C-alpha cells in the first residue's frame, strides 16, 4: 500500500496526539412533523387502527460511512453543498446525535457552537453570559469573574449599554457575537463551530478568527463548518469535503478548496 502518499495528504508531522477519531460513522435521523402526506384527523385515526407508522416521521440518511482522524492543534474545515451532512457530522462528534453504525471517539468533551445556540431571549446579555458559563460546567465564582470579559469581547456594549437589555432587543449579529463570546470563554479541547463566524460583521469575524487561532495554538482542535470559503482558507490548513454524506476529499485546504470550487462550477 502506498503509505507515503496518504501520509502527506493527511496530518503532517507537527501535530500531537489524536483528539477526534471518526470511525466509519453512519447517521440516520428521524424527523417528526415533516408535513406533506396525510395529516388529517381521519388519517390519524386510520393509522391508530391499522397500526401503521405516521407518514410525518421520515428518515434521513445523512452521513454514510465517514472516517478520519483529527489531532491536537489542528483546525479542520468542513465544506460541501447544502444538505451534504456537515452539520449532522458535527453533532455526532459533539455526542449529540448517536450514530446508527460506527463510533466517534473524542478526548474531553467537544463543544458545539452553532448559530442556533438558544439562550434566554427575555434575559439581559449579562445574565445570559453568566448562565452560559454555568452551563459549561463552571463554578459560580469563576463564571462571575468571566462575565465582564465576555461582554467586552463580544463588543455588544459598543453602541450603549446593551448588556443590561434583554437579548430579544439585539440584532441577529449582536446575538451571534455574544454567543460566540460565551462559548469561547472556556478553553475547549475540541471546539466545533457551525457557521457562527458568518453572522458577525467584518470586524468581529476578524476577531473570532484570531480567537480560533489562539485556541488552536493552546493545543485545541477546531472544526469549522462554513460556506464562506474565505474564512475556511483563513483559519484551517486542513479541509474535509463532504458530498451527500460521503467524503469526497480530505487534505490541505488549498488543494481541496480548488477541487470543490471546480466541482461547484461544473454543476
Amino acid at each position, binding site marked *: 500500500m502506498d503509505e507515503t502518499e496518504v501520509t502527506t495528504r493527511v496530518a503532517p508531522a507537527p501535530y500531537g496526539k489524536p483528539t477526534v477519531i471518526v470511525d466509519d460513522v453512519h447517521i440516520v435521523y428521524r424527523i417528526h412533523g415533516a408535513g406533506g402526506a396525510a395529516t388529517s384527523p381521519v388519517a390519524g385515526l386510520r393509522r391508530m387502527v391499522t397500526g401503521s407508522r405516521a407518514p410525518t416521521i421520515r428518515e434521513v440518511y445523512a452521513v454514510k460511512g465517514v472516517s478520519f482522524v483529527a489531532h491536537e492543534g489542528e483546525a479542520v474545515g468542513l465544506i460541501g453543498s447544502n444538505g451534504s451532512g456537515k452539520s449532522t457530522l458535527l453533532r455526532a462528534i459533539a455526542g*449529540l446525535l448517536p450514530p446508527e453504525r460506527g463510533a466517534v471517539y473524542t478526548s474531553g468533551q467537544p463543544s458545539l457552537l452553532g448559530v442556533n445556540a438558544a439562550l434566554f431571549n427575555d434575559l439581559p446579555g449579562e445574565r445570559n453570559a453568566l448562565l452560559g458559563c454555568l452551563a459549561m460546567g463552571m463554578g459560580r465564582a469563576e463564571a462571575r469573574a468571566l462575565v465582564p470579559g465576555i461582554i467586552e469581547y463580544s463588543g455588544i456594549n459598543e453602541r450603549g449599554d446593551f448588556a443590561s437589555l434583554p437579548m430579544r432587543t439585539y440584532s441577529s449579529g449582536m446575538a451571534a457575537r455574544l454567543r460566540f463570546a460565551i462559548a469561547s470563554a472556556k478553553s475547549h479541547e475540541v471546539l466545533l463551530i457551525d457557521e457562527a463566524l458568518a453572522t458577525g460583521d467584518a470586524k468581529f469575524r476578524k476577531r473570532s478568527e484570531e480567537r480560533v487561532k489562539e485556541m488552536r495554538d493552546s493545543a485545541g482542535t477546531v472544526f469549522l463548518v462554513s460556506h464562506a470559503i474565505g474564512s475556511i482558507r483563513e483559519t484551517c490548513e486542513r479541509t474535509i469535503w463532504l458530498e451527500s454524506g460521503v467524503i469526497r476529499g480530505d487534505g490541505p485546504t488549498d488543494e481541496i478548496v480548488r477541487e470543490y470550487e471546480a466541482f461547484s462550477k461544473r454543476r
Partner: protein
Amino acid sequence: MADTAVTEPGSDLQLRQLAARHGLHVAGARPNLLAYTKQLWTYRHFITEYANAKVVVAFSTARLGQLWQILTPLANAGVYFLIFGVVLNTRHQVDNFIAYLCTGLFVFTFTSAVVQQGTSSIVANLGLIRALHFPRAVLPIAVMLTQFQNLVSSIIVLVGIVLITGEPITLQWLLLIPTLVLQSLFNAGLALAMARLGAKLTDLKQIIPFVMRTWMYGSGVLYSVQNFEAHLPGWANTIVTANPLLIYIELARHALMEDVPLASPVGQLWTLAVVWTVLIAVGGYIFFWRGEQEYGRG
C-alpha cells in the same frame, strides 16, 4: 502512522485501537448512575441560576412584574372560592372552608405546574441541549425549583389567609416544612419521568391537562374529603386515599388548621407520603438517566 488507514477498508479495528491507545472515549456515552449524579452536583449552580432565570422571565413583560407571583395565587383562590364556596356552596362541611380550599389549591398547583412544564422541559430546550453539554436532568429539576419559588410566594399568601380566617399559630405549623420537602422531591421525580416521556411522545402535552384535571378532582381540592367515603364504593375509596397528592394536601391542612376532617389517620398519611416520595423520586431519576443520550435527537 496509524492514521494512514483513513481511507482503507477494514480500518475499523485500527481506528478503534488508535482511540484506545490515546485514551479517547466514545462521544456522548452515558455515564454510570454514580458518575451522573456527581456531574449533576457540579452543575448545581447552573440549576439554581436557570430556575431563577425562569422565574424572572415569566413576568418580565408584565408591568407589575414579580408582583404577579403573589397576585396569581390570590386571584386563583378568589375564583375558586366564588364558585365552590359561594355559588355551589360546598362550604358547610368544613368550618374554615376558605383556608381548606386554598391549602389544597396551592399544594395541588405546585405538582400540576411541575408536571405540565416538566413534560415540555426537554422539547422546549432543544436548542440549549444541542448546543451545550450538561446533564440533561438539570432541566426538569430546574422546572421543579422554579415552581417551588412560586409555591413559596403562594404559602406567604396562604399564611395570611389562614391567619385572617381565625386559625391560631401553633407548633404544628412546622410540620408544613417536611411536608413540602417531601412533595418537592416527589415533584422532581415526576418532572424527570415526564420529561423523558414528553421527549418521545409528542402528543403527551395535549393529554396532560385532562389527566391533571382528573387528578385534581381525585385529590379533594375543591370539596371536603368526607365526600369520598360517603359517595365512593370501597375499592375506589381505597385508591383515592392512596393518592399521593391527596396525602400531601391532607398533611398540609393538618399542619395549618385545627379540627380539619382527614380521609386517613395522620400516622398512615406520613408513612404513605414517605413511601411515595422515595418511590417516585428514585424511580423518576433512574428512568430519566437511562434515556440520557437520546435527548438531543428531538
